[in-house]
């Protein structure tokens, strides 16, 4: 409980004093502005990717509404509470992951969903927040940088859910959760020596994995990533079509609603994971740069919130959430532009789909909570 003692030692400003509506609602203005701009842009691209029909847009709007509600709700929760909830959330989430593997529905060939009768629920989504929360709490219990054994404990806490999700199999989500956990460890002070050592070990490790650990179809998947032309109508098809879409967009793009690749059905998954290709085709390099800039501003604001946070738990959690958001972006755009293999990671806040949207907005709710529940310290 050490970290949470700190705010108590400072002279915080009294709540409710000369504050605007946003502050009273515990919302962060710059972050909110960035999210709305991004969301609006996302809806516009979705309208185009949906072939000019509004039904996708309307459904996505409903989801955005739900996600914003979750965000506002979480923004009201002081970080202290989150600190208290983390273990329970983590234990419940891990239990549900086990349950999913045992009884879960199979959707698109992977077991991810848990049908609770009234709602279909993806426990792995909750773990996207539960894991960094749990790890942040774990590290914040002792002064930073953490000891080797504490790090090892944190690694174990992270590895269990990551492996459970990878087994579903949902490589994208397990990758995101692993990176969110890694960011907590890294921001918390994982020693460079350990990091360097692990990196050095990763090279022969990867070779051993390739030679002895992988099955043929898994190797094939890696090879297809390295050379998608090998299998133009199979797994390489997505990548070939999305690079054609992006490349044909050129500097200025074909214009909104004028993307031919996407409108003529050449581009698979164009409203979900591959929506960045639609964006790149219709708005060109300029549009892509603007989109990246908006993401940068949001992440930058998140990192600022993390650095001015007042306790280790908030700092680590806010930092991890911000950087994980960036990982989302880079994995998705890297995949769509052919830099990374195809893993199912949506373009955050733009791709059509509800679950990840709610989780992401919940993360931003936490960021806002971290920022707005501060007590001002004398500097």
């Amino acid at each position, binding site marked *: 409980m050490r970290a949470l003692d700190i705010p108590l030692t400072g002279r915080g400003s009294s709540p409710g004093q000369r504050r605007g509506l946003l502050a009273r609602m515990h919302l962060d203005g710059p972050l909110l502005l960035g999210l709305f701009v991004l969301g609006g842009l996302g809806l516009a691209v979705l309208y185009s990717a949906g072939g000019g029909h509004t039904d996708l847009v309307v459904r996505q709007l409903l989801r955005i509404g739900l996600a914003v509600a979750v965000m506002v709700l979480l923004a009201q929760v002081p970080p202290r509470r989150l600190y208290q909830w983390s273990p329970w959330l983590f234990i419940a989430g891990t239990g549900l992951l086990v349950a999913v593997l045992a009884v879960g529905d199979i959707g698109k060939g992977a077991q991810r969903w848990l049908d609770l009768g009234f709602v279909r629920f993806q426990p792995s989504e909750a773990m996207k927040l539960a894991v960094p929360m749990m790890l942040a709490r774990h590290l914040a219990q002792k002064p930073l940088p953490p000891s080797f054994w504490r790090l090892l404990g944190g690694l174990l806490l992270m590895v269990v859910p990551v492996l459970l999700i990878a087994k579903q199999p949902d490589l994208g989500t397990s990758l995101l959760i692993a990176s969110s956990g890694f960011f907590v460890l890294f921001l918390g002070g994982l020693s460079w020596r350990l990091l360097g050592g692990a990196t050095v070990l990763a090279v022969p490790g990867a070779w051993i994995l390739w030679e002895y650990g992988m099955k043929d179809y898994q190797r094939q998947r890696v090879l297809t990533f390295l050379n998608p032309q090998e299998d133009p109508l199979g797994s390489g098809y997505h990548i070939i079509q999305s690079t054609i879409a992006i*490349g044909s967009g050129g500097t200025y793009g074909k214009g909104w609603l004028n993307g031919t690749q996407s409108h003529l059905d050449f581009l698979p998954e164009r409203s979900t994971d591959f929506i960045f290709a639609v964006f790149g085709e219709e708005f060109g390099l300029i549009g892509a740069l603007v989109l990246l800039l908006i993401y940068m501003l949001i992440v930058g604001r998140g*990192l600022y919130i993390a650095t001015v946070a007042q306790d280790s738990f908030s700092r680590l959690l806010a*930092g991890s959430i911000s950087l994980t958001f960036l990982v989302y972006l880079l994995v998705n755009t890297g995949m769509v532009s*052919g830099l990374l293999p195809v893993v199912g990671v949506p373009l955050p806040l733009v791709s059509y789909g509800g679950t990840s949207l709610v989780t992401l907005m919940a993360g931003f709710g936490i960021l806002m909570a971290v920022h707005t529940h501060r007590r001002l310290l004398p500097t």
Partner: protein
Amino acid sequence: MERVALNDHLREIRLFRGRVIASIVFFILLILALIARLYWLQVLQHAHFRTLSEDNRVKIFPIPPTRGLIYDRNGTVLAGNLPSYALEITREQVDDLDATLAGLAEIVDVSPADLRRFQRLRWRKRAFEGIPLRLRLSAEEVARLAVNRYRFPGVDITAGLTRHYPQGGPLGHVVGYVGRINERELERIDEANYAGTNHIGKTGVELTYEDVLHGTVGYRRAEVNAVGRLVRELDVTPPDPGRNLYLTIDHRLQHAAEESLAGRAGAVVAIDPNNGEVLAMVSNPGFDPNLFVNGISSKAYSALRDDPDRPLFNRVLRGQYPPGSTVKPFYALAGLETGTVDAKHRVFCPGYYSLPNDEDHKYRDWKKTGHGWTDVNKSVVQSCDVYYYELAVKLGIDRMHDFMDHFGFGRVTGVDISGELGGLMPSREWKRRARGQAWFPGETVITGIGQGFTLVTPLQLSAATAVLANRGVGYRPHVVSAEENPITGEIAIIDPEALPPVPRRKEANWDAALTAMFDVVNSPSGTARRIGIDAPVHIAGKTGTAQVFTVGQEEEYKENEVHEKLRDHALFMSYAPYEDPQIAVAVVVEHGGHGGSAAAPVARAVYDAFFASQGVSDGN
């Protein structure tokens, strides 16, 4: 713990900020890599990807041109395009395919072969593409389907054009037929121009004039989606339809000749001597070209192939027969024009001929008792062989060859139907080249009566007769006279091609030869006198009987004892009217026996039909 808290706190903030900066540096590098990738895709490789994207979305659908029609000289359709209805099933619109197939089988005939083809195509076509279940639906089936259509969503009746030959058998060899394009033809044709076309000319005019009849393919450029479904049409280049062809053939003569042959194997060719137009061209038995259009059944095909009368064999172009006595007017003219004999020259015919140095070998005359003293006129009219044995020896084989060459013997006529054979007009040089042997005098003797090596096609015989009738002025035989643009109605006449004329020395010689032919038909002793009776105009001609079976020196040929297939071929060459030749007819009746009795009446039937249509009545 409390005491170190602040210290720790500041240290932790420093540590954290350091780590955040490290992260920012790391991610900026990654973002720069992403931007570099985007720059490469969207700026450096833009042209490449733009091309790929265009290829992706624009598909070109061919629009096959409508095949030109074929008319006879009177405008009667010989080859047309009939709408044909096919039954197609679009899989994606059918809920229960098996139930649909079962239901359809109750309404229309669905053979096991139809089902097999359907199942085979089913895996090759996309779900939104129609797959034919039945082709060539009858009108009744179309009606029944139309009534029951509501029961079968996804089942459509599609209309197409299929080649149809309304005149059927008698014109099969001339018009030919179209059939499905095969692999060998694929190598020959311009595949782009045949995109969307399934049929190609296989024989006859359909083959020779394929380029003209086919036309030029048109294109529809359209946007398609990834599975090939048409989304939007961009533009259309209409096809240039094939030209309609007007043949020189008169289908009435064609039918008349075919009827007159009455089932006997043979050939009839009629040519207008004034321009080389082929008025009739019958090879009997013929075949119904309609059988071949959509693939002939193997049963029907083997029936045609194994028929002993060989209906698929085009005798007009490829049947090579010994001309027999039909060459006599030509040799008579040769003798006169070369000055070897004159019109008064007489030969005594005792019924046989022997070479001066080989008295033992007798060359028989067809008339055992002989013709007695015979001049050139009598030699033609009564077809005296001995006269020509002697004349041939006097002329010598090389002069005979050179003279006959002027009339096209031994050479293809160059008619505009492919597959023609050239016959054979022997010479010393030919025998040395082809057989590696010297020429024997006895061979010259029998060449004089159109036996031995000499072979002609019915087309050559009629073409040569036309040149003779027209006194040496000949035209290349042809069956197509005009091409018509079906859109503008413009007609391009194909001019007849004049052949190098036969050198003429004395008109009187030609008169003598032609008068003799006139007498063959019109004098009481002529071998074809029977067809001269009540003829609409004056016919001139020459009968011929070609040996299939060589009779031994001491044997005698008895017609009714010889097996039918070894019986002589009956030939007749002729033209009419004698005074102003308008039509030359050659007839071959295989194993028909005598030219005068078997072949000449067929020619007469053609003349009757021809002059009836010209408004000339009997007894001109």
